[in-house]
């Protein structure tokens, strides 16, 4: 990150003046934390005792045999407390908030995963917590709303715009400019105004650090390829950082191909030709927008990848050809999910399953002595409503209908 928050041509901080000072403070606190080895130690300690880091690197023996190529390893972020890598970022920011002396946190959430993680962190740290969530997502992800509320957070359904993630972000910013003195905005991914992309990536780098060490221990040398799904880009940045600059390790980001790259119903920013450079939500990146700069509606089976922008750091790495981007369609995702459950007894989140799709396409082409790592950013059992729905499971539908009859009296 340069002094203006840029990574190459991307990033920056496009924020209302009212937030200027709070960003200055945040940048200072963040810089101090980064310089202070004790801070990272405290962070590691917290993640080791409250979540279960290091998360394992699991050898997927059955999938490996099935595809007959490279050894497939899965980095198990699904085993984090709250079920996804989101916890890493949130707990890190929690420590920072404590340092800054603020007493209230806010967050946006799409899938609900980041909202649950933030509500959890707030409960743990004793902060007040408000989570903004698009009304459409509130309806889709009621279980997550339930847990957030149970952990003491206030969930505010956002009724503007497309009523999804990007609108929740706007609304969170509106809260922040109003309550800037008391409040920290816990941004959920490696996007937004500087220093968020770098800071979130820093907290997530714990994934890559562990994976680097683990693959050397198990495999004896560097893997050939690393796969991660890319919504905002935080889990991808997290694992990629452990391997960036290592020769012969190829990094592959997988975006939401939705109904196909040519369908107009996807959320692929770097893969495909639908995104163009733009500035919104506080930063410059490749956005899915029309010619006049109005953001488009996106589509993905996974709420967590269904976003118009992408981490400026990843765009920079993409321009530098250090990360390759691919996409996975909704249909491919359901297939990869099915195979992984049946062969390994592991349930990737719909988001994570995107990374599995691409890995499965490429594993057979690699030698048996090579290794690849898939970053399993989260667990899928949180997505029962979406997954059972997507599989069109008749007993599930009947179950819901019966339950509703009980309630609808």
């Amino acid at each position: 990150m340069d002094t203006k928050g840029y990574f190459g041509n991307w990033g920056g901080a496009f924020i209302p003046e009212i937030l200027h000072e709070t960003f200055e403070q945040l940048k200072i606190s963040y810089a101090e934390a980064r310089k202070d080895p004790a801070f990272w130690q405290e962070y590691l300690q917290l993640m080791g005792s409250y979540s279960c880091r290091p998360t394992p690197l699991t050898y997927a023996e059955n999938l490996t045999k099935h595809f007959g190529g490279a050894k497939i390893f899965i980095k198990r972020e699904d085993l984090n407390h709250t079920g996804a890598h989101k916890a890493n970022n949130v707990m890190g920011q929690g420590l920072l908030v404590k340092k800054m002396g603020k007493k209230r946190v806010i967050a946006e959430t799409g899938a609900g995963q980041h909202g649950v993680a933030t509500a959890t962190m707030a409960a743990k740290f004793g902060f007040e917590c408000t989570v903004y969530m698009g009304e459409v997502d509130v309806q889709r992800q009621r279980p997550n709303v339930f847990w957030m509320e149970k952990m003491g957070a206030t969930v505010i359904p956002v009724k503007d715009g497309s009523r999804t993630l990007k609108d929740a972000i706007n609304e969170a910013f509106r809260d922040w400019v109003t309550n800037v003195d008391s409040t920290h905005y816990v941004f959920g991914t490696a996007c937004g105004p500087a220093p968020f992309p770098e800071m979130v990536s820093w907290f997530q780098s714990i994934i890559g650090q562990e994976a680097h060490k683990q693959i050397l221990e198990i495999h004896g040398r560097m893997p050939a390829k690393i796969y991660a799904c890319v919504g905002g880009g935080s889990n991808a940045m997290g694992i990629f950082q452990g391997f960036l600059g290592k020769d012969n390790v190829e990094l592959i980001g997988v975006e939401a191909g939705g109904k196909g790259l040519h369908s107009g119903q996807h959320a692929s920013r770097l893969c495909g030709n639908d995104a163009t450079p733009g500035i919104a939500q506080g930063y410059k990146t490749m956005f899915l927008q029309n010619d006049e700069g109005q953001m488009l509606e996106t589509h993905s089976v996974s709420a967590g990848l269904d976003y118009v922008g992408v981490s400026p750091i990843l765009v920079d790495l993409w321009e530098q050809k250090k990360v390759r981007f691919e996409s996975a369609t909704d249909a491919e995702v359901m297939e990869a999910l099915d195979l992984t459950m049946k062969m390994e007894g592991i349930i990737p989140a719909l988001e994570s399953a995107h990374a599995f799709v691409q890995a499965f396409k490429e594993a057979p082409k690699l030698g048996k002595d090579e290794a690849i790592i898939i970053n399993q950013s989260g667990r899928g059992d949180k997505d029962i409503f979406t997954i059972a729905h997507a599989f069109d499971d008749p007993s599930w539908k009947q179950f819901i209908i019966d339950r509703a009859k009980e309630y609808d009296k």
Partner: protein
Amino acid sequence: MLLENTIRNKRQEKDILLMTHIVLGYPSFATNRKVVAQMVENGVDCIEMQIPFSEPMADGPVILKANQESLAQGTSVKECMAFGAEMAAEYDIPFLFMTYYNIVYKYGEERFFKDCQKANIQGLIIPDLSPEMGENFFKLATTYQIAPILIYAPTSTNKRMASLNRSANGFIYCAARRGVTGTKSSFDEDFDTYLARCKAATTLPLAVGFGIQDRADVASLTGKVDMAVIGSQTIRLVDEKGPEAVGPFIAGLR
């Protein structure tokens, strides 16, 4: 220099100037036309016309909704530009564009300034673009002699105000409080201290906006600043009572 001079000159004649706000294409350009006419006839001194954006991060619910509905009807930047040109040609007060940076960026910065110049637009308010982030923009503003209006906030330090002042032109837009547009502000002691800080930081005229809703609000600013900005309140008025209500409302503010 143009805008700053116009404001200073007008200020010679009035104790306080009024700037109003409209969202282009909301509810329609036809209504915009009627509203602007009423505003000008009733003595408004300056009008900021918002080019709608799908992600108006700094705006409150009233203006947010107006942005969305305008876009839903298909409002384009080109139409906004043409409408701006039409107004500036018809009425002898300064017209400004307010929008977010992406609109300018996607239009092409230089092309945007050129077209604004042709349209006789005198200033631009871009709340998500600071001088650090907009080097080229601020250069072009000088080249094309269109004032880049900067915002002071209660959270801005003295140093920050001084630094912003070096890139500002036309006038300084002082946000009366934290938060987004649309809710009422109170002009208390803290506010006076803040205003004093603003004045110390710049020699440009000062406008105050965010939550100014009635004659009392305007009165409490008179003598203290150069211009009061009425934002969401007129949009609400048009929503509820139609464009005809705007004239009497404006007339009653001073």
